[in-house]
Structures are given as structure tokens and as C-alpha cells.
């Protein structure tokens, strides 16, 4: 006779097996994620409530006083925030616009472009520390600085590129844009290649000028990639560290001090300010979360997915 209960037990058993297998398969990834992401994150929150140093992080409990101090007492944090915001905004605008322009230019089928594509991509393959060193040399105010040598050769005065507050940050920006543009152009370029050519032919028949085709067809078709660039470049720029550490180390003065160099300084160089640095880290995290949420809320509706 047909047994309902037995049937249900069989189904449940099968479902449980399914469930167990699925979780077993993602377990390794989850372990790593917990170990290297969740645990340090909790630790960061915990640290941010104390005063201490690396050797003795929990010297005294401060509650939210660290966060209050960041914005009221600490002389460097708010400027570092501003510098980071400036850096991020300029890098974002430059990288997105230039990588789209480069991609449009490079995606035309010319002989030169095969070379240009690899040339523009190659900086991405070099460690950013090495890039930073090379550019420090080019920007150098010493006799061997490349840019000043060129300026002098054509009869212009030297510029103290990295040694004056008015230009230092922009020099770092130039180097980071140069390093990353190839990678982002590549992403845009592959998206461009995926746009069917008939659409442009239809637009030609619809008497659309090239500029109108770019803004009405190309850009909207690239919106998923542009959105991806927006998120990755924003979060990446907020966390800029190595190039600044090598090229200016936050100077001159504190004109290139950004959030991460600030955190580094307060966590490992200054005494008894590990808690304060952790609080800075928490603020950085919150800003990134906020920006990402705003991006998704505000812009994702405009993104066209196939």
C-alpha cells in the first residue's frame, strides 16, 4: 500500500542530502572568508573602542570617544578625509572618461592598435610599488628627474612636482591613472566589441551624428561596465595606499595624507593610538558601504542589462 509518511521521509532525506552537499562545497570558501574577513572586521570594531598599541591593544576602554576624537581633536584625520575625497573624485572622473575614450579609439581595427592595446595594458602587469618608484624618479626635482630635464631642455623652469603641496597629489593621481587605464580600457573595449554593428548602421540610416550615436547608443550600452567601473574605482581609490606611501609618504606637510596612510601612521608609527586608527578604519568601512549602497540605489535603475 502507498505509504504517505515513508514517501515524505524519503523526500526530506533527499533534500537534506542536497542541502548538506551544497554547504559542504562552499565550506572552504566560507572558512577563509570568516577567517580573513569577518574575524578581522569584528576585531577592528572591538579595537576601535579601546586605547592601546600593537603590543597591548586593550589598555583602557574608551567607548565611542575615539570616534569623537577623530572629528574634533585629531588634526590630521579630517584633512586626510578631504584629500581622499579629492583623490577619489579626480581619479574617478579621469579614469572613466579616459578609459572610454581610449577604448573607443583602440577598438577601431587598425594595425597600430594591436600594439597600442598591449602598450596601454602593460602598466597593469607591473607592481604598483615599482610604478610608484619609476614615477618618483620621473617627477624628481634632482638633476636626474625626467620631466624637469625636459622642461629645462626646452627652456622652461623646473617644477618641484612632488615637493610642493599644490602639485604633489595631482602627480600621484597621474601615476595611478596611467597605471590603471589599460585595465579599465580593456573592460570597456570588450563591451564595445559586443555591441552589434547593425545598431550603428540603423543609427546611420536614422541620420544620427557620430556624437549622438556615442551618447545615445554607445554609452547606454556600456552602462553595466560603467557601473562596475564606478564601484571598483571608488572603493579602490578610497583605499589608495602604496603609491602614496612610496611617492610622497603623505607629504609635503600632510598634503597627500589619505585615509589609509593616516591609519598606517596612527596604527604602527605613533604611540598608543591603535584604537584611534581602528576607529578611522571603521569610518573608512562605513563610507565605502554608504557609497556602494548609494550607487546601487541611485544608479542601478539606469543600468541596462541585456
Amino acid at each position: 500500500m502507498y505509504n504517505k509518511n515513508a514517501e515524505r521521509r524519503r523526500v526530506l532525506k533527499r533534500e537534506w542530502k542536497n542541502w548538506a552537499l551544497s554547504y559542504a562545497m562552499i565550506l572552504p570558501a566560507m572558512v577563509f572568508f570568516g577567517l580573513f574577513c569577518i574575524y578581522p572586521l569584528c576585531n577592528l570594531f572591538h579595537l576601535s573602542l579601546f586605547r592601546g598599541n600593537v603590543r597591548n591593544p586593550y589598555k583602557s576602554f574608551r567607548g565611542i570617544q575615539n570616534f569623537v576624537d577623530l572629528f574634533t581633536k585629531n588634526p590630521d584625520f579630517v584633512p586626510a578625509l578631504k584629500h581622499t575625497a579629492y583623490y577619489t573624485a579626480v581619479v574617478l572622473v579621469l579614469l572613466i572618461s579616459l578609459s572610454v575614450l581610449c577604448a573607443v579609439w583602440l577598438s577601431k581595427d587598425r594595425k597600430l592598435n594591436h600594439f597600442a592595446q598591449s602598450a596601454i595594458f602593460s602598466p597593469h602587469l607591473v607592481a604598483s610599488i615599482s610604478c610608484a618608484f619609476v614615477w618618483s624618479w620621473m617627477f624628481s626635482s634632482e638633476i636626474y628627474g625626467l620631466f624637469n630635464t625636459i622642461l629645462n631642455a626646452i627652456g622652461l623652469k623646473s617644477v618641484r612636482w612632488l615637493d610642493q603641496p599644490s602639485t604633489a597629489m595631482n602627480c600621484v593621481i597621474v601615476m595611478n591613472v596611467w597605471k590603471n587605464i589599460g585595465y579599465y580600457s580593456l573592460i570597456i573595449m570588450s563591451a564595445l566589441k559586443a555591441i552589434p554593428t547593425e545598431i550603428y548602421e540603423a543609427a546611420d540610416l536614422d541620420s544620427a551624428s557620430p556624437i549622438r550615436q556615442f551618447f545615445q547608443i554607445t554609452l547606454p550600452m556600456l552602462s553595466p561596465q560603467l557601473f562596475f567601473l564606478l564601484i571598483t574605482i571608488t572603493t579602490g581609490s578610497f583605499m589608495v595606499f602604496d603609491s602614496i606611501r612610496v611617492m610622497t609618504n603623505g607629504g609635503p606637510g600632510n598634503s597627500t595624507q589619505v585615509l589609509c596612510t593616516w591609519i598606517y601612521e596612527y596604527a604602527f608609527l605613533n604611540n598608543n593610538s591603535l584604537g584611534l586608527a581602528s576607529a578611522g578604519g571603521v569610518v573608512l568601512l562605513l563610507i565605502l558601504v554608504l557609497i556602494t549602497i548609494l550607487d546601487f540605489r541611485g544608479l542601478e535603475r539606469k543600468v541596462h542589462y541585456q
Partner: protein
Amino acid sequence: MGEIVFHQVEKSFGSNKVIENLDLTIRDGTFTVLVGASGCGKTTLLRMIAGIGPATSGQVLMDGKDITDLEPGKRDVAMVFQNYAIYPTMTVRENIEFGLKNKHIPKEVRDKRIQEVCASVGLTEYLDRKPNTLSGGQRQRIALARAMVKEPKVFLMDEPLSNLDAKLRVQMRVELIHLHKQLKTTFVYVTHDQVEAMSMADDIVIMDKGKILQQGTPEQIYHDPNNTYIAQFIGSPAMNVLPLDAENRFGFRPEAVQLTREKVDGARYCRKGVIQVREMLGSETLYQVAFADGQTVSVKMLNDQYRSGDHVVLNVGDNQLYFFDRDGQRIRRAAVGDAQYAALLQTAGGMSDV
């Protein structure tokens, strides 16, 4: 007006010559269908009219004006692409409106035209939807509406129905014929489907390997084909073509055959055969008939009176026989004279075995 003339047109892709020395006149106001097997250069020809794939040499004229190198947007043409080429990021309305906006047509005029066109193709309720939320048939209508709203002198259509299911295809065929009747503009329609060509065209242009084999009305093409390629391309099942003598061949259409038990009086070509395969299609029945020498021919009959294995006699009259030379070119009575033509008929008749 919308007359298109190709004069000594050539087109190469690299070293690959796709179209050579082509002359063609597409008369104003006709529904002209370019038909031929895949890869024969139909799309290439259409793109020359549109201006999106210019000729390598030669001239394309529209109403007597040389448009060979004119920008696509400045020609008075609209095109429906095979895969529709709808702008995916725009709504239906924006898709249809795009060409009008680029030509700076005032908003009231745009709105009025869009409303009219969308009412006629049945898109009105979808105007604010994105194309990816619509079905294949509806996208097809967007492409059509986008072309119609421009009110061009010439409509170009590249296999516009090939992505639709069979039922919708038949329906759209009728709608397009109707549309042409209404607009009375020139339609240039590309297809590889001879049924579509026959059913829609005022004028059929049959192409093969970049050459034009014949241009004419569907009746001319069907009843008076220039060569075996056309004879076998138009009509389904294809015309039976059999060897006549050492040089020539002859043919007859499956539907021109009388299948009987006994020889029919007055028939020229009468052969005994056995029904090998019978396909009952409802309104008609297809037979494969095998002769004693192993040759098989297809026959189409309106009545369904025979079964596989039946012994029958196949009868073809004088007027149903076509003769072709060794290159497959048609041998016409007018060209060779009555005497020689009678000899050909005689030879065909001599092959009868009843």
C-alpha cells in the same frame, strides 16, 4: 518616386569578389523581392541601396540621381534588418522616434506620426516598454514601425520574417502586402524563401553567386524560367529535370503531371512507374514515382487515389515540357524555331514506354 538603378556595380570584400558587373532596375512603386540561396549577395545589394556597404565600383542611382556615395541618413530609405537592430537601451517610443528627432522634426508631428504608425502595427500599448520585454513578433513590429514612421521613398527589408514562427510569418506576409498596397512606395525585400518571394512580389529578382539570373513577375518566373537553377529553385517540390539526349535535358513540374492507370490521349511524355513514397499533406498529395530504369520523379496531385506500390502511368503534355541545353540554359521555341523545337518534343516523346 523611388526608382533604383544599379549600373555596372561591383563589390569585393578584400580579394573576394561578391558581386560582378551587375545591372538592375527596380521600378518605382513595386514590391521587388531579391531571392536566392544564402550567401549569393542579396544583403550586400540591399546594403548598397541603404548606403551602409558602399559599392567597390559602379553606380547606384535613385530616381536618376547618383547616390553611390551619399550618406545613409541623407537617402530617403528605411531598412528593416534581419535581426531587427533595435536600440536595446531605448523604449519602443524612443526607438521609433530616434530618426525623426535626428531630423529635427517638430514634436507635434512626431507624436502624430508615431501614434498613427503604432496604431497600424499594433504597438500602441507597448510604447513605454523596453524591447527586451517584448516577443519576437513585437520586436519585428518595432523595426517595421521605425521604418514606416520615416515615410521613406524606399523600404528595404532583409529577411524580416525569418526569425518568426511559421504562423506569424504567414500573417506578417499578408500585412506587408497590405502595407505596400496602402503606401504605394517601392519595397525591396530580401529573402531566401521562394514561397515568400512568389506570394509577395510584383517583381522577382533571382540571384545566384552575385549574378542576376532572371527578373520578372512571379508568373513569368514560374512559367518561363531562364534556366534549370531557377526552374528548380521556384516551386515546391522542385521541377523534375531529366536527361534528354547526349547534350540536352528536359523538365516538367510535379504539379503539371497527370498520374493515371492508363495512358492519356494527347500526352507527349508517358512513362510507366511505381509509387515509391506517398506523402499526404491534406489538400494535396506528393508521390515519388520510380521508372523501370531507376530514375525517380516527384509528382503533386490534388486527389489522393494511389498508394505506395501502385503501378501508374505518368503523362506530361507538350506545354508542360521545358528544355535546357548542356549549361542548363533554357531552350525556347522562339529562339530555336518551330522545327528544332518540334524535334526536341519528338525526342522527349520517344522516351515514352507506354
